[in-house]
C-alpha cells in the first residue's frame, strides 16, 4: 500500500487502448526482461572463462527447448527495446510529436522488432539450428 495520502493519477483502466500506450508499456516490460537477460550474458562469459566442459554445458542448456524459447523471447525483447528506444531518442530530440507521426512510429517499432527477430532466427535456422 502507498504510504502517502496524495491522490494518484488515473491509471490504465481509465484510458482507451491505443498502440502508443501499448508500445510504452511494452518498452518497460521488455526493459525488465532484458535486465534479467543481463545475467545470461554474464553467465555465458563466466562459463567461457571457466573452461571447455563448462562452456559446453552452458551451450547445452541454452540450446535446449526451454533455453531456445527463452532466447527467442529475449531476442525479440532486445530488438523491440532497440527499435522503440531509437524512437524515444528521436522524440527526446523533439521530433515526431504529431499524433499521426506518433502512431506511425509506434507501429514502426513493433514491425521493426518482428522483422529483425525473424531475420536473426532465419539466419540461425539456415546456418543449421542453434544447437
Amino acid at each position: 500500500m502507498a504510504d502517502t495520502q496524495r491522490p494518484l493519477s488515473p491509471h490504465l483502466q481509465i484510458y482507451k487502448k491505443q498502440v502508443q500506450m501499448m508500445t510504452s508499456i511494452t518498452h518497460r516490460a521488455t526493459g525488465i526482461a532484458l535486465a534479467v537477460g543481463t545475467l545470461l550474458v554474464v553467465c555465458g562469459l563466466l562459463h567461457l572463462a571457466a573452461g571447455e566442459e563448462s562452456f559446453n554445458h552452458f551451450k547445452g542448456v541454452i540450446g535446449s527447448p526451454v533455453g531456445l524459447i527463452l532466447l527467442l523471447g529475449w531476442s525479440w525483447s532486445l530488438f523491440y527495446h532497440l527499435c522503440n528506444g531509437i524512437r524515444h531518442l528521436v522524440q527526446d530530440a523533439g521530433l515526431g510529436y504529431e499524433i499521426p507521426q506518433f502512431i506511425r512510429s509506434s507501429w514502426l517499432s513493433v514491425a521493426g522488432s518482428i522483422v529483425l527477430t525473424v531475420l536473426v532466427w532465419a539466419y540461425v535456422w539456415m546456418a543449421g539450428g542453434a544447437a
Partner: protein
Amino acid sequence: MSAKDAVVKDRRNPLKIARGLGSSQSGVGHWWTQRVTAAALVLLGVWFVVTVLCLLHADYATARAAVAKPWNALLLIVFVLTMFWHAVLGLQVVIEDYVHTRWKEVALMVAIKFLAVLGALAGVLAVLRIALTP
C-alpha cells in the same frame, strides 16, 4: 546576482528550492545518463548480436580466441558495464513509479544496485581472464 535573480533564471518555485524537492535534486543527471547509455547500447547491442551470430557454431577454442581479441575484449567490457548501468537506471524508474512504500523502494533499489555491481564486475573479470590468460 541577487537570490531573486537566481530564482527567475532558474524558473523554479523558490519554495521548491528551499524544501529541496522535485527538480531541485538530481533528476536531469539520471535522465541524461539514461539517454547516453541508450545511444551507446544501440551500437554495442547490434555489435554484440552480430558477434554472437558469427560464433554460432564455433567450437570452444574459436569462441575463446574471438573474445580474447583486443577489440572484442574491450567492446565486451564496455558493453557489460553500459548494459548494467542502463538496466539500473531503467529499473530505478520502474521501482519509483510502482513501489509506493518507502522502505521497500529503498531496499529493492539497494538490492538491484548490489546485483548490478556484482554482475558487471563478474562479467568484466571473465572477459579479462579470457583475454589475459593464453
